[in-house]
């Protein structure tokens, strides 16, 4: 029985990793064609650093992801605190609204945002992509922070107030530390979702703004350059190394589990 379980795990793992290994291998292919292996080469890794289009795509991807996830985390965390104070009925209503961008089809989210940006006279640009990303990131933050806040209850915060703390001080010293894991995982989740997003960006990006995803899609149509394989290999390995290092450094059994789990949620 154990063996069957093991085999099942391995088969699924191969299913999940086969494409990734393929991409990594082909990033070392000398030829531009994906279907012809002509020899081992680091050509695409070199080209990666001189390709201005790619460098700007990398910059856009990460600047948008970082800004969007920071803003979403702040707005989302504040919102959770506010929502907790509301009546039961408005709480359910708001959580229902919160679920819309989360469960709605990406294509509908993207299109509806594009239509409104244009209707309100925004030029599609880096800024519109950012706003769109914040929109779909906030729900993830709320979903991660809300349960922690509910666990905490209002008691300790009020106790701090009774003991003479200012509301801000109490909030920072009592509430924040307790909901910190939720905030962190909300932030990480937003960040990953933003980096990985394609559809929403596709519709809300303006002229000449590319993220890694849209760059890939534009090249899928005309024959992809292996530089993108090289880039993804690098990103993938960086994430892997960071996670493994954090695992070794943090060491503690339970904390490590939490962290892996939270980080891996992407």
């Amino acid at each position: 029985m154990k063996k069957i379980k093991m085999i099942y795990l391995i088969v699924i793992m191969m299913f999940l990793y086969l494409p990734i290994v393929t991409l990594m291998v082909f990033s070392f292919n000398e030829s531009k064609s994906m279907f012809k292996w002509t020899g081992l080469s680091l050509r695409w890794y070199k080209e990666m650093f001189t390709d201005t289009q790619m460098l700007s795509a990398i910059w856009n991807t990460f600047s948008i992801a970082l800004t969007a996830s920071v803003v979403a985390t702040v707005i989302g965390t504040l919102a959770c605190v506010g929502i907790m104070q509301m009546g039961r009925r408005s709480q359910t209503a708001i959580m229902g609204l919160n679920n819309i961008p989360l469960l709605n089809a990406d294509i509908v989210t993207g299109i509806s945002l594009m239509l409104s940006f244009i209707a309100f006279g925004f030029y599609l640009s880096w800024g519109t992509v950012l706003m769109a990303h914040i929109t779909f990131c906030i729900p993830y933050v709320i979903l991660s922070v809300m349960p922690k806040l509910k666990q905490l209850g209002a008691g300790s915060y009020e106790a701090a107030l009774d003991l003479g703390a200012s509301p801000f001080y109490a909030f920072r010293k009592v509430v924040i530390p307790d909901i910190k894991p939720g905030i962190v995982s909300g932030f990480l989740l937003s960040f990953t979702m933003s980096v990985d997003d394609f559809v929403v960006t596709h519709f809300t990006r303006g002229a000449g703004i590319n993220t890694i995803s849209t760059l890939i899609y534009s090249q899928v149509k005309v024959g992809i350059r292996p530089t993108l394989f090289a880039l993804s290999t690098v990103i993938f390995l960086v994430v892997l190394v960071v996670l493994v290092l954090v695992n070794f450094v943090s060491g503690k059994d339970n904390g490590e589990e939490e962290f892996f789990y939270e980080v891996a949620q992407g």
Partner: protein
Amino acid sequence: MYRKLMATPYLFWVLCGTIIPLCMIMYYGFTDRTGNFTVSNVLAIFQPVHAQALGLALLLAFVSTLICLLLAFPLALILKGSSWGRKGFIVFIFILPMWMNFLLRTMAWQVILEKGGIFNTLLTTLHLPTLDIINTPAAIVLGMVYDFLPFMVLPIYNTLMKIDDNVIEAAYDLGATKGKVLKDILLPLSVPGIASGITMVFVPSLTTFVISNILGGGKIYLIGNIIEQEFTTSANWNLGSGLSLVMMVFIVISMGAMSKLDKSGEGNFI
């Protein structure tokens, strides 16, 4: 009172980022190019072209959701049963692929499955019959299962982890068989996770245009492809919005079904 105000930026954002955009889609969906009211964009779904694309999308989404469920439930069970120390690691291993851009991962399947691709070259050198599924609906289903499997595994795993081991032990002590434990304890208690997993797989599968573009070889048009075409190459935003509204009906239905089955939201994949 003052703390309630902390939700204002969020409510403002919900208004601007969710409610207004949905109204915009409604507006475009119910008007024609000159801005007059019309229902023809929504009724266009009954044109055979669009109906076929929607039908095929529903079918493929259903099949891939089913396959995901059949793969994910045993997987989540195995993950639950594995020893505590390695669990974080195993989950991590299964989620890690999502850090590589999903367009590229989907494209990699193209390289693998192509007629002159890796898999078939391997099969021919072994003198086995080749596998010709690229550019067929089967390849699209494979892509959907591959891309969305983690969204099924995670919620189910989360609900399974919440089940108290003592309950299961007690059942065994009272003489329950493995099958009975599965049927009467594990399955019913993981319904919220299953429901949320089904939505998380079904909705993106139904609406995708990327996977069908990359793995369908341009031969298969799903409703997502049609909507995308209307917005990009054909520039008929009104028709595109009308069809999106129809598609949203199916999304709302599945969301409604989910919230019935998962009342407390414990099946969230977070």
